[in-house]
């Protein structure tokens, strides 16, 4: 018996410690080995990630109204505010709040709802007289009346609503959605942006950017007049065969470049050129809304040769029928009513009322609402108090209000005809059902079948996600 065996217990203890350590290191290095949850799988050629749960929706139509339409004149009926119209707002509501122009010391006055409200449909949802067509479809809609955000100015708040972060540079909800879902139709982009309205938006490409995600997921803007996509059609004398040959040559150069440098953006560039080629054939047919029968045009209220919101709604429906996953409708009509809220809304609401109602109705009739989400949101709400000293009802308006906003959603997986969340009697703060923009994003991702905490992208050494470090799914509105 040699000495080594006599000391075997000591040796065994000593050596086993190294072994357990190795196990722990192996575990932390390969998460997949240790976690029961399977890693995000990629399906085959479509480059799709497999959802974590059974998806309820496959596509999203996002109606984005920069400027922030006034929820107090559209959806959130506050009879107490009407009663206190013209009186100085009680300090208790204003304490500790920050608005853009209104300061609590200036003793702002309560501004009652400027239009009449009524309850509609089986669900009894409150909608004002400004939206008569929309009132007919409220039974298919879920309202969230207590949506909070952290930002009180347009740029950061729009970025927060669109990309989950108040500073530019992050991928938008649309980019995350197509990153997660891939595209159905290889001849059309997965994420399309349609703009209407005369004013310039505050954000330019950040409103539909892909941030650090591969740029193939960036939104493609379809223009309403002229060429739908700039530089898509061939110049005179240049045939499609010529174009294909040049694109093939460019892509061979790009591939050589990629072989040398390995930059993944080059691959995105190659695929975009190929997509552009395929789009040449597919886009003209897709954007040809005038091939729709007359009754459809009557339903939406479209106008020929104009970049109207109605045209865009109809185009959005056509695009999603052709496999586009995410259509973002930016209506830059000028919703920022710091003044002249009465005339402003009277002028603008008819332009969105019929089309958005028609969209919900049309999607429902076609059975598309089963697996589509329509999301309508401004970046924040508007204050219950008036802005500015002049209380002339023709000139008065409301300031930005980050503490409570109303948005609506309609589609698969949501409880139709439900109103979730409530604000206090004057509409300042949520009293129940308060949700943050992050929670809305988490819910949208959940409807798409993804756990918002597990849909991540590694960048700059950490795993980024749409909801950053927050976000809780709004379970009560999910079926």
């Amino acid at each position: 018996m040699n000495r080594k065996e006599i000391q075997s217990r000591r040796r065994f203890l000593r050596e086993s410690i190294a072994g357990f350590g190795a196990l722990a290191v192996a575990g932390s290095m390969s998460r997949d080995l240790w976690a029961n949850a399977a890693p995000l799988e990629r399906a085959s050629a479509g480059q799709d990630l497999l959802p974590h749960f059974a998806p309820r929706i496959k596509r999203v139509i996002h109606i984005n109204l920069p400027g922030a339409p006034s929820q107090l004149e559209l959806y959130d009926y506050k009879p107490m505010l009407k009663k206190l119209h013209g009186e100085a707002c009680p300090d208790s509501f204003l304490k500790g709040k920050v608005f853009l122009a209104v300061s609590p010391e200036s003793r702002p006055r309560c501004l009652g709802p400027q239009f009449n409200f009524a309850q509609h449909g089986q669900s009894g949802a409150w909608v004002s007289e400004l939206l008569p067509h929309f009132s007919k479809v409220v039974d298919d809609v879920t309202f969230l009346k207590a949506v909070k955000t952290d930002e009180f100015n347009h740029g950061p708040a729009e970025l927060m609503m669109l990309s989950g972060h108040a500073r530019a540079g992050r991928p938008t909800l649309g980019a995350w959605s197509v990153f997660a879902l891939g595209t159905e139709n290889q001849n059309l982009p997965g994420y399309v942006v349609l703009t209407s309205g005369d004013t310039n938006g505050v954000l330019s490409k950040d409103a539909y950017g892909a941030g650090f995600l591969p740029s193939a997921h960036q939104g493609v803007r379809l223009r309403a007049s002229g060429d739908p996509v700039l530089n898509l059609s061939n110049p005179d004398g240049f045939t499609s065969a010529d174009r294909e040959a040049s694109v093939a040559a460019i892509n061979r150069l790009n591939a050589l470049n990629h072989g040398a440098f390995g930059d993944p953006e080059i691959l995105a560039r190659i695929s975009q050129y190929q997509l552009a080629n395929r789009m040449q054939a597919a886009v003209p047919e897709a954007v040809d809304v005038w091939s729709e029968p007359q009754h459809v045009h009557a339903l939406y209220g479209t106008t020929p040769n104009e970049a109207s919101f109605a045209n865009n709604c109809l185009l959005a429906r056509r695009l999603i029928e052709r496999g586009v996953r995410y259509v973002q409708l930016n209506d830059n009509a000028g919703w920022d009513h710091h003044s002249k809220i009465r005339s402003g809304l009277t002028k603008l609401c008819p332009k969105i009322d019929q089309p958005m109602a028609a969209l919900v109705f049309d999607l429902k009739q076609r059975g598309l609402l089963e697996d589509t989400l329509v999301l309508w949101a401004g970046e924040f709400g508007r204050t219950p108090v008036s802005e500015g000293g002049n209380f002339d009802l023709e000139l008065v308006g409301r300031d930005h209000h980050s503490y409570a906003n109303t948005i609506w959603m309609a589609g698969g997986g949501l409880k139709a005809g439900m109103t979730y969340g409530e604000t206090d009697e004057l509409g300042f703060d949520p009293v129940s059902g308060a949700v943050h923009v992050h929670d809305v994003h988490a819910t949208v991702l959940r409807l798409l079948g993804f756990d918002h905490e597990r849909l991540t992208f590694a960048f700059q050494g950490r795993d980024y996600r749409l909801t950053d470090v927050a976000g809780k799914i709004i379970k009560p509105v999910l079926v």
Partner: protein
Amino acid sequence: MSDAGGSERESLLAWHMSAGMGILLLTIARIATRVRGPRPLPTGARWEQRAASVTHTAFYFALIVIPLLGWLIVSASSGPSNHVFGFVPLPALPGVVGRSAFGAFAENTHRLLAYGLCVVVALHTAAAVKHHLADPSSGLIRILPGARRLWGWRMVSLAAVLTLMFTFASGFADAWLPNSLRLAHAPEASRNASIDPRRAHVFATVQPIFMDKCNNCHGSRSSKGGLRLNTFAALTQGGEGGKVIVPGKADESELIRRIMLSPSHKDAMPPAGKPPLTPAEGQLLLWWVGSGADDSTTILAANPPALIQSVLTELGVSSESPALAKKVARPDPRVLDALRNTFRVQFLYSGNGLMQAEARFDQKGLQPLSLEPLAAIADQLVLLDLSGARISGRQIGDLSKLHNLQRLNLARTATDDVSLKALGDLSFLEVLNLYETKVTDASFATIARLPSLATVYLAHTQVTAAGVEKFRQAQSSISVVWAVPDEPATAGGGPPTPAPKR
């Protein structure tokens, strides 16, 4: 430990099981060494030697039997924690799977023996400390090379602190371990995950509460107070003290009285020391008894108030269609490759073989589509979208083989009454889209025969308003999406005013 719920508990159990199997292996190795190799000479007085011998035998017994019982428990149940350290699958012991009574016995014995082991450990520790202090050449110095008395003190106190931490800090490991080292993530939905509220009975959500919190004392194995709560008949019968449930009257029901008492009350149920009912569970039982305490009302028919609806959501009753929660194996990849020429097929979600398919966009309308190849994935296919595809009426018959279909979209195809009939009785079909097809009122009979159907889309077909109305009255559980036709267009444009519902 009993406070940790949900995924924390699962993660801890996974660690516990892995540690247990590790200990089992180590003990077997230790016994092998002990039997084979030389043993150290016994020291100390005779009583010390006998005590040591008894303690060591108890140790070996416990360290073999306790992990074996644990293995039995894991085999008898079927939780997610059956992979040792996350990757070595633990085979189930034969003859035990699913026998929950046996599992309960094993659990109790496992716990009792573990307490016994704690006693033995304490004895052993006391003896080790005694040796270390009393005998300079003994104790830790013998095992650890170069150990000096002072260093030994630090080791002893460190060991004591760690033991106390692991014993008393419940959730310690889970709270401190990084996510990457968690062994188990519990599935998001709870045991109620596959309940479809349109068809499930309220009792199906209430019964798991009884099984979980009451069964040990009022179940198949024992009936304290003569009361069993494991079947509906037993619930209504009551026990030695009479009936415990008065249907419709929660305030006269003894069961409700007892579960609503403060935990320190002597009559409170479950009794002190056992896991109490959560507030959500209590509310659910209160509502169930108050609304009649029967076992035949569906959740939908019972029309629970908002509070109970959120309770049900909290308890994980999801409206996830049972058809989408079924677990199926994945099909052969070669089959999928063949299908991908004409269809876009994709798995529904990760970890399950369920699939969805649609006619490829670049193929739509170009040439007639053959539906026969889809039969190869009949077990997996749950969603099928053929909208706008060129299929003839005869081909619809091929779809009758897809017995697991939950959603079928035939919008804008050449489907008509005859071909719809060929669809057969798809027993899981919940949504059928016939927008802009040629079906007429004659198809209502076919539609009515689909047992699980919840929604049918019939806009722009040849059904008449009268036919729709008649069908809606006869079949209130199927929602027909159809609006008054829009030619001539409604005055002023926009969607038509919805008809008032009955």
